């Protein structure tokens, strides 16, 4: 048991201070924010007592962004300026958008950027900016009901999201002024919500059918460790597709041949959606649609009829379940529990098919709309440092293989899918011409062997390679995927030890400077506020560093440091304390940096000590 006492992550927090943190489920159809208060996680409601925030943003010509129910109501009267299902476009390029464009009424700006922009009355916006507008509302809601600034958030993403989509999500959060502790896979969040309540141990399947995405994840729970064994799914399959299937059927039934009126299409889609919801509780329902000529028509739909229409879509999810089980190397009968997530799992046929497939009734105890946000809130609370004794650990995997383009347009896998992250893999390259000083590497993500069938993530230009004869240079490129599933690349020429400069050009994302530019634009009006806020943030950061270093020195400073080392760290800390009370940002930053430099070795020693204690704790356990 000594194991747990030492597992505290070192010098992070003062024990009694509760930090405000929240979990955010940024969904295709709806978004939610949840937090843990007095040990109980719950979703936060708006002034009208609603916990869902429709992920719909309407841009007005005044420049104002309206988010939520009001925006959603305006969708059929103002389809071009009302953006829904924006999550489908996150991290997507112009080419990806084309097949979706037919289904989305918006005008995409025809310009030569890789990131598509939607033209609205308030200007042209990327998916990231639209998502940021949704996140701002959730941030405000959380800060209003918690009565303070959030230290950080956990934002959930579909397990199936690739690097570009994850990066876009994180960038959207930055734009909304949020500090992201972690991007968490939605199904993992759902398992957290259930796992802690029930103390489950065994194999868990999480079936998450939301509005726009489908995920299946196979997890193993053991002694507080959630290990993702495999993930699969489809980033373009969800309840929206049920609506569309139903809508297409309605169009046929109504004998509509001209489908070019976006308002009519929107009305039919809304009616289809209402019909689907009604069929959850009844076997038959009526929907009414106002046609272009103003006449209303009523259609009758039975549950059997709907089941038939959506069966092919459910089949796709079953196939993905089979594949995920195989990747995890477990059989359907090994699965202990099946967790249902996402509003679309309310569709009775979905529940039936899953219970059939896994041979046991699916878990539906927690509201399938809230379960992800609740899991994210639990994780955010832990990551904020509010539960130092918490044993829970989430080990996630990379959902799609990372590879590079080789000759002939083929891919070579560097990190295969379902590898536990964080992970680093190195690959050696050489030059093929005498005196070659630059080289280009194309990184892709996906399972196909042909580069064109994978998603292009980035092109890296390696420059400043020392000129040598062909084949003599040994360039070691390290691909590092962090715990959020985001990729970083470093390159080094081994024979000379020169670091080659890596220039990243994200294929579908925005460069850091573009994001910075957007940040500046969005905050231009509130410059003074921003200054004050930045100073306050630095002071908070300084306090945190001071507290942390004090706690660490008190715990094991004398044990791990020589007198000199101890004194050096103390002196750096004292400088920081002094500057913290001055009103300037930069000196505080520099002093924080100085403390970090002075304690670098100390931090490493503490981490080692912690690992060793864990191992030692284990050996003792084994002998008992």
């Amino acid at each position, binding site marked *: 048991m000594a194991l747990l006492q030492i597992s505290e992550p070192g010098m992070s*927090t003062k024990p009694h201070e509760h930090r405000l943190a929240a979990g955010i489920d940024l969904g295709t159809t709806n978004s939610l924010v949840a937090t843990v208060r007095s040990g109980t996680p719950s979703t936060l409601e708006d002034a009208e007592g609603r916990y869902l925030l429709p992920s719909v943003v309407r841009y007005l010509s005044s420049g104002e962004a309206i988010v939520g129910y009001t925006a959603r109501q305006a969708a059929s009267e103002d389809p071009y300026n009302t953006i829904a299902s924006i999550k489908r476009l996150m991290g997507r390029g112009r080419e990806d958008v084309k097949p979706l464009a037919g289904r989305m009424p918006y005008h995409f700006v025809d310009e030569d950027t890789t990131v598509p922009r939607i033209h609205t009355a308030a200007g042209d916006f990327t998916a990231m900016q639209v998502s940021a507008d949704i996140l701002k509302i959730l941030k405000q809601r959380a800060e209003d009901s918690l009565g303070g600034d959030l230290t950080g958030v956990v934002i959930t993403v579909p397990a199936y999201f690739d690097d570009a989509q994850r990066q876009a999500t994180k960038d959207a959060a930055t734009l909304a002024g949020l500090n992201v502790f972690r991007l968490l896979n939605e199904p993992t969040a759902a398992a957290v919500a259930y796992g802690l309540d029930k103390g489950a141990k065994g194999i868990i399947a999480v079936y998450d059918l939301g509005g726009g995405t489908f995920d299946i994840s196979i997890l193993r729970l053991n002694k507080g460790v959630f290990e993702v064994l495999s993930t699969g799914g489809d980033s373009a399959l969800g309840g929206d597709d049920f609506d569309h299937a139903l809508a297409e059927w309605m169009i046929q039934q109504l004998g509509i041949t001209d489908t070019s009126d976006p308002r009519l299409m929107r009305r039919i889609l809304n009616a289809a959606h209402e019909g689907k919801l009604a069929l959850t509780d009844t076997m038959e329902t009526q929907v009414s649609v106002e046609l272009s000529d103003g006449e209303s028509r009523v259609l009758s739909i039975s549950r059997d009829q709907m089941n038939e229409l959506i069966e092919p879509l459910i089949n796709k999810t079953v*196939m993905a379940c089979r594949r995920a089980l195989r990747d995890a190397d477990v059989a359907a009968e090994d699965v202990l529990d099946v967790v249902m997530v996402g509003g679309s799992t309310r569709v009775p046929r979905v529940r039936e098919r899953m219970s059939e497939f896994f041979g046991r009734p699916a878990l539906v105890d927690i509201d399938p709309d809230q379960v992800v946000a609740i899991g994210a809130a639990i994780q955010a609370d*832990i990551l904020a440092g509010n539960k130092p004794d918490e044993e829970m*650990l989430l080990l996630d995997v990379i959902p799609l293989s990372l590879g590079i383009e080789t000759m002939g347009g083929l891919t070579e896998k560097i990190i295969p899918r379902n590898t536990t992250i964080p992970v680093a893999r190195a690959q050696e390259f050489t030059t093929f011409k005498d005196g070659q000083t630059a080289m280009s590497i194309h990184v892709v993500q996906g399972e196909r062997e042909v580069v064109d069938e994978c998603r292009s993530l980035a092109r890296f230009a390696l420059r400043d390679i020392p000129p040598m004869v062909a084949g003599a240079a040994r360039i070691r490129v390290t691909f590092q995927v962090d715990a959020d599933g985001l990729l970083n690349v470093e390159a080094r020429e081994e024979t000379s030890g020169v670091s080659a400069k890596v220039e990243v050009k994200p294929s579908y994302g925005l460069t850091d400077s573009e994001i910075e530019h957007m940040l500046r634009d969005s905050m231009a009006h509130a410059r003074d506020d921003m200054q004050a806020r930045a100073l306050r943030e630095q002071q908070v950061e300084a306090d945190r560093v001071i507290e942390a270093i004090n706690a660490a020195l008190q715990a094991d400073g004398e044990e791990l440091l020589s007198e000199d080392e101890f004194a050096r760290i103390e002196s750096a800390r004292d400088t920081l304390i002094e500057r913290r009370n001055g009103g300037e940002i930069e000196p505080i930053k520099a002093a924080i940096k100085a403390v970090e430099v002075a304690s670098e070795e100390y931090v490493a020693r503490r*981490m080692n000590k912690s690992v*060793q204690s864990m191992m030692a704790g*284990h050996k003792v356990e084994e002998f008992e």
Partner: protein
Amino acid sequence: MPIDLDFSRSYFELFGLPESYLVDTAVMADRYRSMQAALHPDRFASGSEQERRLSVQGASWVNEAYETLKDPLRRARYLLQLKGVDFDADKDTASDPEFLMQQIELREQLEQIDSESDPLSALDRVSADIRGWNNELRNQFEAAYNQNELDTARQIALKMQFFNRLFDELRRKEEQLEETLM
């Protein structure tokens, strides 16, 4: 005091396991979780920049070590590498003619599987065969390695590599078949 984050230590030393082909996977899994419990970046979400950096490096290293020792083929290659035996899976090929014949036959079988009356169960049969041979190779590798017959061990590892590739192909085939059958 040994430093655990000393990246020059072998994966076996990291896990406190003897350097051998047979590993106690249960003990390894337990120690893996303990190390990640202390090192994982989630433990440093509100830590300093350098803690986070060190934690990502350390956790990546532990993950890599675990994935290497967990996988029978990668473990074999790693043991050979520790003994200084060069192993280039792309350039080296197994030289046993009988084995190569078997590989060719298996590949042909796999290609013709679509025309079988029940292709999925035919795949299952091939898959079971490969598993059996692979287990046999693992036993052979262990014996050769323990006798310090490193060249033999290397040849066996190369054969394991063949089966692994075949297995990958088989799974791709299985996915294709499932898609056409759905």
